[in-house]
């Protein structure tokens, strides 16, 4: 069946288009809003996870702090939309607020780009492996505590509420307040971002990343500046969580410090591993499964996180290359060979 949707961007577009109707139990005519909401969450986290996975799955650096870029994008959007009046030292910063999507998106991206640019040059050349994971986690915690503690600016523990959705030129001002309008608006933005990710992975830059993931020493001795690739991959992969964070604020119309927590950083690691880190599409599938499980299991038990944990462990043991990785194995080697690969490990 997957041969039919051979081009990943084609099946990504199709899935984004029908996602809210794909969810088990979804009915286009009854209770649509609930599934539209779940679909929006899945799509936004798919972008967050796929951006993160550019670093984790494609060049092989596990960041445990990518939620910092998500939360910066989210807070910048929230503050620009709502406006702020804050005193820093002797300066009084006042902003009245805006409802321009482009403006918020560009500034979210700009701030994240500046931070990722500096942070990448600071930490990537100095660390790899588990040390890199821990340092990214440490920086994410710094951002988390700033959002958590700076009451006057970020709203502290309560975060920021009543953030209006943007108005699009040529559309009525409350157009995006309708759930399914917002879903398709977000889906288009997400699709464009995913197309950029696809383009990066398929470029010569992407193939060098894969080479570094497989054997960084050999890449270095062929003449590749491995450090430069790792710095650049870090920078690029930070941009997509920022876009996702911006959309997340508009979707929720509120933001709390949770968005920058360890839990959010860990969530995209889990989604990527579930779906398959060496694939383009895997993290999106991971996002789908994660939120679908959460949605269903939370109705049965309040210990839904434990259930997801067990499912995660089972998948990692049975399909170590992730679900989409297993699908690719079946496609490339046949069902029997794919089974043998799993159980010979």
């Amino acid at each position, binding site marked *: 069946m997957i041969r039919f949707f051979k081009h990943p961007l084609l099946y990504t577009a199709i899935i984004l288009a029908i996602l809210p109707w794909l969810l088990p139990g979804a009915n286009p005519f009854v209770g649509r809003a609930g599934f539209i909401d779940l679909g929006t969450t899945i799509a936004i986290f798919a972008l967050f996870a796929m951006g993160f996975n550019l670093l984790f799955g494609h060049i092989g650096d596990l960041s445990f702090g990518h939620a910092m870029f998500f939360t910066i994008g989210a807070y910048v959007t929230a503050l620009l939309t709502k406006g702020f009046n804050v005193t820093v030292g002797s300066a009084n910063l006042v902003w009245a607020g805006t409802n321009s999507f482009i403006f918020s998106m560009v500034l979210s991206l700009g701030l994240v780009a500046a931070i990722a640019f500096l942070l990448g040059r600071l930490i990537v050349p100095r660390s790899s492996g588990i040390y890199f994971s821990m340092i990214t986690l440490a920086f994410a915690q710094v951002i988390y505590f700033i959002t958590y503690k700076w009451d006057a600016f970020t709203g502290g523990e309560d975060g920021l509420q009543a953030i209006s959705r943007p108005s699009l030129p040529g559309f009525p001002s409350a157009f995006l307040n309708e759930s399914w309008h917002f879903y398709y608006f977000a889906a288009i933005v997400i699709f464009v971002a995913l197309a950029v990710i696809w383009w990066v992975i398929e*470029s*010569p830059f992407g193939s060098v990343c894969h*080479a570094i993931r497989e054997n960084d020493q*050999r890449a270095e001795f*062929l*003449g590749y*500046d*491995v450090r430069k690739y790792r710095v650049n991959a870090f920078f690029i992969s930070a941009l997509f969580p920022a876009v996702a964070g911006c959309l997340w604020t508009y979707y929720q119309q509120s933001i709390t410090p949770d968005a920058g927590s360890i839990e959010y950083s860990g969530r995209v690691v889990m989604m990527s591993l579930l779906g398959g880190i060496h694939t383009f599409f895997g993290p999106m599938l991971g996002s789908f499964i994660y939120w679908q499980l959460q949605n269903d299991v939370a109705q049965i038990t309040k210990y839904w996180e434990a259930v997801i944990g067990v499912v995660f462990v089972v998948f990692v043991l049975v399909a170590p290359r992730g679900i989409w990785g297993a699908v690719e194995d079946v496609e490339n080697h046949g069902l029997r060979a794919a089974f043998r690969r799993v159980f010979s490990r």
Partner: protein
Amino acid sequence: MSYAFRTENLSRHFAGFRAVNDISIEIPSGGVRTIIGPNGAGKTTFFNLLSGLLPPTQGRIWFEDQNITALPAYRRARLGIARSFQITNIFGKLSVGENVRLAVQAVYDGKANFFLPGSRMGSMSERTQQILADIGLGELQDTRAENLSHGDQRRLEIGLVLAVEPKVLLLDEPLAGMSPAETQSTVALIKRIVANRTVILVEHDIDTVMAISDTITVMQTGGILAVGTPSEIRNNEHVRRAYLGDLT
């Protein structure tokens, strides 16, 4: 250019052990220059110093007329120093063709825009096919490199080294573990590629070394015992006593 490498008082110590001890040598450019010596003589450490895998404890290294002592490995590779490893070092999970293509593409790193399609970088696929034919793996280009036989993996690594268009090839035991037939074709390959390059070999197969080397350097306990043509080395009393002994 009279020499490929020149070293001056080059040393590398590991926690007090002198793996390479005060070597000052010139390695002439062109031809097959072989380094032999018993296990632990420092041959691989010497290679690691030349190629930039290890920084020296003391001393300096020149490549052609440039002091490369402090250059990182990838910068040395861009100057035209390519190496293979004693333990096969390839991209195991990638296909044979992809392995070679990455090596061909490496020449453009820092020169071309890597976010544009690779087709803009000239005749990359042509070059890739040519290398694959050279090492005799053209028909296996879609195979994952880790699924190749040991001998083919060794040849693929030589292919990677060749693809970056180096001036000097450092080959660390390229014949290790090869069958007689594989050895023969690899020796033929080395003879072909040396035409306009310098090949520096570390090798244990004495018959082959005697047959293909222009000069042989004998190392022992981190230092140089003797340098000469194969026949000079064969007749050198010190070498006979220390190393070749009962072989000749």
